[in-house]
Structures are given as C-alpha cells and as structure tokens.
C-alpha cells in the first residue's frame, strides 16, 4: 500500500486513492510508423529491478495523472512530478542520483 503525493493537489494519497497507469514517458507512434516502432510503443516495456518511472492517476481524488519515480525493489519513492513532461525533470534525476548513483533507465541517467 504505497503513499504517493499528488503533485497537482498536494495530497499524500493512499494507494486505494490511486490507479496505476504503467510505464511513463512512452512516445506515441501512429500511422506511418514502422512495425518495430509501433510494437515497441504498444508492448515494449522496461522491467527493472530498481529505478522506474510510472504513470499514476489520482482517481479518487483530483482526477489528475502524474508521474512517480520509485525503486521497484525497495518501493522507495524518489519523487512525483507532472505527467506533462516527456522526460524526468532535473530535480528528480538528481534525487535519484543521490540515492542510486549510476542509475540508468532507457536513455535517461
């Protein structure tokens, strides 16, 4: 039962208030995309033991989507941030580097 703070309304929300939305920062591929790109977009997902970026919906709250960075092994939370970003913001990346030096996730580090 995680507790994540919604960056929109500021509520430290219990997992029962939230809805998990899978991996964050997927790039959409539409008509004209190659089979490989489109397959990767639909089905290719990271499965890390460690640093991960996820989408969460404050479903029984303000109704906003946001992003969370956390460790899948220890459930440590590195931070939550806006869903309207295509990559993790610098403060979040710094916070992760402080606790998991040398981390990598997709093209980010």
């Amino acid at each position: 039962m995680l507790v994540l703070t919604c960056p929109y309304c500021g509520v430290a929300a219990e997992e029962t208030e939230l809805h998990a939305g899978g991996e964050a920062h997927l790039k959409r591929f539409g008509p004209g995309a190659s089979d490989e790109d489109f397959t990767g977009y639909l089905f290719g997902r990271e499965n890390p033991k460690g640093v991960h970026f996820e989408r969460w919906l404050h479903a029984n709250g303000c109704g906003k989507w946001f992003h969370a960075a956390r460790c899948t092994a220890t459930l440590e939370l590195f931070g939550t941030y806006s869903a309207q970003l295509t990559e993790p913001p610098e403060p979040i990346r710094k916070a992760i580097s402080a606790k998991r030096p040398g981390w990598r996730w997709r093209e980010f580090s």
Partner: protein
Amino acid sequence: MSTRLTRAGRLIDPTRPLEFRFNGKRLRGFAGDTLASALLANDQMLVGRSFKYHRPRGIVASGAEEPNALVNMGAEGRFEPNQRATTTELFDGLSATSQNHWPSLEYDIGAINTHLARFLPAGFYYKMFIHPRPFWKHVYEPFIRQSAGLGRAPKARDADRYEHFYAHVDLLIIGGGVAGLQAALTAGRAGRRVLVIEQTPHWGGRAPVDGGEIDGQPTEAWIGDALAALSEMANVTLRNRTMGAGIYDHGYALGYERVSDHAPDGGDAPRHRLWRIRARHILSATGAIERPLSFAGNDLPGVMLAAAMRDYLVDYGVSPGDRTVVVTNNDDAYRTAIALKEAGLEVPVIADARDHATGPLAERARGMGIRVETGMGIAAVKGGKRVTGVALCAQAGEGAAREYVACDAVAMSGGWSPVVHFWSHCGGKLTWDRAGAMFRPDADHPPTGQDGLPMVTAAGAANGAMMLDACMADAVAQARLATIAAGGKARKTAPPEVECAAEQAIEPVWIMPQGAPIEARSKMWLDFQNDVKVSDVQLAAREGYESVEHTKRYTTLGMATDQGKLSNINGLAVLSDALNAEIPATGTTTFRPPYTPISLASLGGEAHGELFQPIRKTPIHDWGDANGADWEPVGLWRRAYAYPRDGETVEQAVAREVTNTRENLGLLDASTLGKIIVQGPDAGRFLDMLYTNMMSTLKPGRCRYGLMCSENGFLIDDGVVARIDDQTFLCHTTTGGAERIHGHMEEWLQTEWWDWKVYTANVTEQFAQIAVVGPNARKLLEKLGGMDVSPEALPFMAWADGQIGGFDIRAYRISFSGELSYEIAVPASQGRAFWDALMTAGQEFGVMAYGTEALHIMRAEKGFIMIGDETDGTVIPQDLGLDWAISRKKDDYLGKRAQVRSFMANPERWKLVGLETLDGSVLPDGIYAVGQGRNANGQANVIGRVTSTYHSPTLNKGIAMGLIQRGPERMGEVVEFARTDGGRIPARIVSPVFLDPEGERQNV
C-alpha cells in the same frame, strides 16, 4: 492428572465461577481463564486429533503459537472452526467441540492412519495419487476432500457485525510486554502520537511469570506504574485484545481487535475491528516463542512447552500434571521446575542435554532437592492418550534407555525464537545468532519505507535480547531510535535497574538423543498440526530437496494454521543437519501476514449487503419499482429488464413490450446512457482522434453515430455524438462505459495532447433521458404540445432544444430500435414528472414502458451491434462491417495504425453475420460454429461463434448475430454449431439486418 490448585492464579477471579461446555460436557472455570486453562483445570488434556494420523493431541502452548488445541466454537450463525483454546477467553455459556475425529474424540477410526504412517511419508500425496489417472476423479479426490481440512466450514450466515477503523500515528508499537511499554513511555514523553497494541487481554507479557525486578520493584508493579503513566498521556493510545496482523508497504499496518469474542452478548459492539494503521515508524516488541524439543513421543498429551506449563501454574493456578519430568537444553526450563516444586508438585528429574548445568537457576533447583541429570535426554515418552512415563537416555548416544521414570507430564524447552514476523513482513533480513541459537533481526538490513530509511525497529526479546536486563536495556536503546525515526527527539537515557537471574548458555540440541535411530526419528514430531516428523524432513533432504521453501511444500512443514510458529526453526535445523549445511546457509521460509489467522468478516468490515457497493438509480427508478420492474444490474446501475404485468412471465412481458413498441408506442428509461460534454477550441480535433469517424465536420444541430477504439485497434465503445455549437459536443456512451470513456478522454488530454484546449465533463447523472419510440411517438409529443417535432423541423439524426408539455427538453431524433424515435433529455430533477406526463398523455396511443431486453431484441432485429456482445476486446470495427463509420480522410485516430497490422487485415478473420436456424429455433448464446476437419489436438476446428441470440416476437422465429470466418462471403451457406452434449445445430448465414433494411420505419 491436570487440576486446579488451591492457590489462585494471577489472572483468575475465584469469586466469579463460569460454566461452559466441551463436547457437550458441562464444566466449570473462572473469570480470567482461557478455554485452555479451564480445560486443563477439568483434567481435559486430550483436546483434538492431528490432521494426518489422527493422533491424540493435548494442549502444548499457552498462547498464539498453540498447534493442537483447535476447537469449533459456537453454533449456527456464530459457529466458527479452528479457534485456538489458548487464545479464547472463557465466558459463561461458552460451548466448544473438538475437531478432526469420528465418531468421537476418545475413539477415532482415523487413528488407523497412525499404523499406516510407514506408508504415508513426506510427499505421499504427490507420489501416490498420480496414477492411474482415472482414479484421481473417482477415488482419490473424493477421499482427500472427505479428509482434507481441519474443522468444517460454517453454513449459517454470520450473525455478528464487523468494522474497519483508521488510525494515523507517529509510532505503532506492536506488543504490550515490558519492552513495548518501555518504548511507549519513551516515545510518549517525546510527544509522539503512539498506538500500542497487545494481542492478549493483559499487559506486561510474560515478565510477571518469569520473575525479576525492574527499578527495585517486582515486574508486575513496574507494569502497573507504566500503564498508569501511559494512561495520563493524551498522545498515547493503548489497545489490548488487538493483535498486530501484518505490516505492509510505506508504514501501513493491520491490527485485529477482538472486541467482543470474550463477551459475545455485549450488545451492539462489533465482534472484530480491523485497524487500518498508517505509522511513520513501527516498533516490534513481540517477544519470543519457546521451541519444542524433538524426541520420540513428543506429541503425546501431557508433553508441553516448559514456559507454557509455568504460565498455567502462575497465571491460572492450574497444574498440568502431578509428576512432571523437565527436559531442556537451556536454563529457562529450570524456572518451570522451581515453580512446580514451589506449588507442591513433584519434579522427579530435570533431564538437561548439556554436559553441565552450573548456573544460579540450576543450583537453586538442586537446592530445592530436585534431581538434575546432565548430558541426558529422552529416549521415548510412554503412554497413549496421556503421558505415563519417560525413558531417559544419554544425549550423546543412540537412545539405549538408562532409566524409566513414571510421570504424567513432560515440560520441554528447546530454547527461544524471537518473533521476527513483523520485522520480516516488509523484507527485513535475519541473522543467525550462534550464541543464542536463534534467528534475530539483522539491524544492518531493516525493512525500509517510502523514504528509503528503516521502517521497523525491533526491541527486547523480539530483537533477541532474551533476559530481562538485556531486554530492558535494548528496549530503552531501540525506543530512542524509533522515537527519532517517528519524528521526535529523544535523549540517550540509562536503562532501568534490573534484577534477574544470570543464565548459562543454551546448547543447540535439535533432536534427542543425538544418534536416534529411524524408529525413534519417525516418532519425533516437528509440526504437530500437520503431522510432520523429523524423518519426513530427512527423507525430503535425501530425495534432493535442498531449498527450505521446497522442503516446506513437499513435507507441509509449517503450512498449517499456526504457520510453523513452533516447528519452523526446528525443521530448518533438522534439514540443515541432513544437508550437512550451516543453519544460516539453509535460510528461513518467508514470514507472511497475517501473524495468526484473522476472520474473513473483519476484512470485509461493513462492506456487505446494501453497503457492499453503491447502487445507482435513475430519476425514474421508483416508477419501475411500483410497476413490477424486473431489475438487472448494469455496472452499478439497476435497469429494468422488463415490466411484467399480472400473471405474465418475464418472457411474455418482453414479447409484449417489443410488439407494442413496434405497433404502437413504447417508453424506455435511457437515463443511464453516458453523456459527456467535450468543449473547447480543439474539441473537434480531439474527437477526430478519439472516434474512427470524422466528428469535426458535424454541423451544430446534427447527430452522428461514432466508434471509439483503443490504441490496439479494438472497438471499446460506441454512441451518438451531437454537436451543440461550434466548440461543444455531447458524446453519448454506453451505460457501462460512461466513467471509463470519460477517463479515457482525460488520459489522452492530460498525458498526450496536454496543449490542446479542451475540457470534458461527465454529465450523465445531470439528465434523465427517455426514448419515445414507435409509430405513435410523434403523435404523443404533438399532443403534449410545444416545439415543432415534424420531420421537416426535426429530421432523422437531428436534435433541437425546446419545450414539450411545458418541460424544457432537448430532443434527439435517433433510433436504436429501427422505429420512429425521439430520445428526450430533461434535467434529472424533471425526469420523473416528464415520464409521468408521457405515460398519462400516451394512454390513448397505447403507451407501455419497455425494458432492456426488448431494447436488445429490437436492436438485434435491426442488426445493430452492442458493445460487450458483438465486441469482447479482440474485435475491430472492420470485423463488424462498420467500415462505413471509419473515416478514410483522417491522417490519424486512436487505433488507426493498429488496424493495418497484418493480423487485423487478414481476410480469415471472423466477421459479423446474421444467423437463422433451419427450424426457427433459438441458437444457444455463445455457441461455437465448427468447420471441416480437426486441429492438432484432435478437436473440431472452430470457425466462429454466436454473439447475440433472441426469439424475435416481430418475426416469430429465432434470430442471431455471430462472428464467422469469412462470414460475409458465405451468405446463404449453412454452418453447424456444436452443442455441449455433442449434438449439432445447423444454421444459415444471412444478413444481420432482419427487419426493414431500407430504414423506412425510422425515417418518417
């Protein structure tokens, strides 16, 4: 025999006798007794039969770790199996029966299994029941089902009430022994919000039984002072009868409060209360559990844990036996011998497996005249349903009996294991303490919380600090750390002054004697409840089971309701020895919540019956109730399936409703239909992405039927979109889809196209919507009067705002039935009044309400698809012949790329067709069509299935829709459908539009 002593126990109120029944026998106990202590006071040592061999079993422990004394409690709505007698408080009128025997506890047929033990080794079920295959279904499974499970499941509805309770605290302390109370004092004084939960009714744990002094006073007095001080603190909450059940992520914990188990006629109180706790930090002060020793016959009634025997003596004034042999590998059991002797009972011998016993406790026992034999173990316990004596032997040898000692009880102690469950639930690691012969929390690898810092601190005996002085010193040190972790400030303080006897080190002895032969090892029980013996674990090791997790499942060690509280460490030690490995290298099994079983009803809490989930009712619901509606759930809504009249069956009502709507006039409560407003400068662009069709070209005042797909290309919803003005659309969704589709819109707006200027609002419940359907529909609206509803003013697929009968309405000329139809929306508050007005004015036109089944039949007669019938998450619009609703002009929409994947474009896909049986009968729903030949598994090749099937009252025959391989290319062909009984039903492929293909009825 076991009996009540004249000297009253510490917890007993001798002035309050209570009467109870065990297996129908009337017995007496006192207020303060547990069921176990009261049974022992009545010489009822035999309390049950073991699971596999039906061995007679007695009470072994005095607390939550008890494996044997499981009883059925109560009757009817309060019947509950597998209740531990040791944690059941006695009350007047209590009625319990023993389990797992037939015909009676004393004479049990199943006990024959004990003589077959040789043929029932570890893994027996896996080895035996594999062959021959047919035997499984007809012989083995019925046999196992008959014998499986302890107790019987209750049949009556639970008569009690249960509830949930939420608590947010800085520090949760699990365990109200001296360590827990000391920690509460520290954190409480630091101003932290503290919750202390204790599973028993009593505070202080076992310190008052074990003796010693804290701060110059007996432990019991210190506990009293601590409780008095804590009760003065407004920031500290103490809850007894509340067990820590489990610890979960980010400081979430469950407490299980047994509110009225001990006083079942306590009026309005719930029976159990589930505490759902969020704590900044958790301190585990859960104490330790004594381990049994493994010697032949250690499961006979009368063999008990030494400390449990001491508890019965001191707490309840009950002596489990008159002559007790004590067997031990540590000093603690000497306390039991001393207590027994002080109570005037006989202790013929203490058999100590260690080669010397020179500590103060041993000296004191000798001083009292108790014979102490070192280097000595038990070769065998003699007796049947009760211990009659023991054969002593050298611990170092192979069990040659040195001496026979008559006795009626044996007190055993194999040392103590810290209760590490709450340290381990969230991933805390353990370390093997060689000196203490125990696993204890590894402070370097604690469970961590949201911030990555330690989430749980262990203190006292739970942290491996077993003796009172060490325990209190550890409690003080850990309490400080826990207080700081909980956000408080705490200075280093000196531990209280503690007086307690020094103890000589334990000798890790796991089986007795060391070189016991196989006959003896086959009678040494590790897991009393699941009947797992030393020989079973050794056999598992010989058969190649090296992992403790595999051995557990192969032998069932530790898999019973006690989850191996007594057996795990002993079993692990035996396994390690058999594997020639160190104990820490073998490792432990996983500790999982709950600590002891908790009632399912407490997990449900108040969420049952009417409170299980909310029911959504339309503004017209009450009319349905008053007019015989046959309700069906659609999502959380209740919709009328049909409105049967006097003497009608539901089927007759459905047929009447269809016919009347087609011939006269029908009203449908369509209020549950989803209504989502999409507004903004980019609304058209947004809907073009969401729907397969072009919505941005829709003119204000017009409606368009649209399809929505997922990014996978699959159809997820459909409905009519109305353009309200240049920047505003109203999207109708399916009844079940409103929230989901609104969420789908928001997800794309928030996470992909966040710079598009669009707002959405789900206004489903703001409007009642009534479909006025049938040849007389326009006549009714014209009679009520108001806006122009003529075909010229309001043609098919148009909408208009206006007034009808004095109501402000919005009328949509859309039809899901194929008839002349107006769907009319009014503000929800006007819904019932408008419905009533339509009903009254419609009498002369033959108006009748119709329900969802009539709706379904009429749409199927017209070949209209239904989301969830024709779609199942694998169907694309092209499968349903809906290519006309897919725009070719758009560059993009959700699902467009997916729909050109090779599999989606495969001409072999199952596609929508109509189906008619040759004899006019109705095809079974979901039935599969079979083609030529067989597949690789020898099964008939499947070429399609029925998705909707009805008897059409209009056409007076069965009609169906289905998805058939290359279906539209096979018009007129007869295909066969396979019944579950092996029979085949031929049906002809036809157009899915059974009625009025030109649409002449609706377009008038």
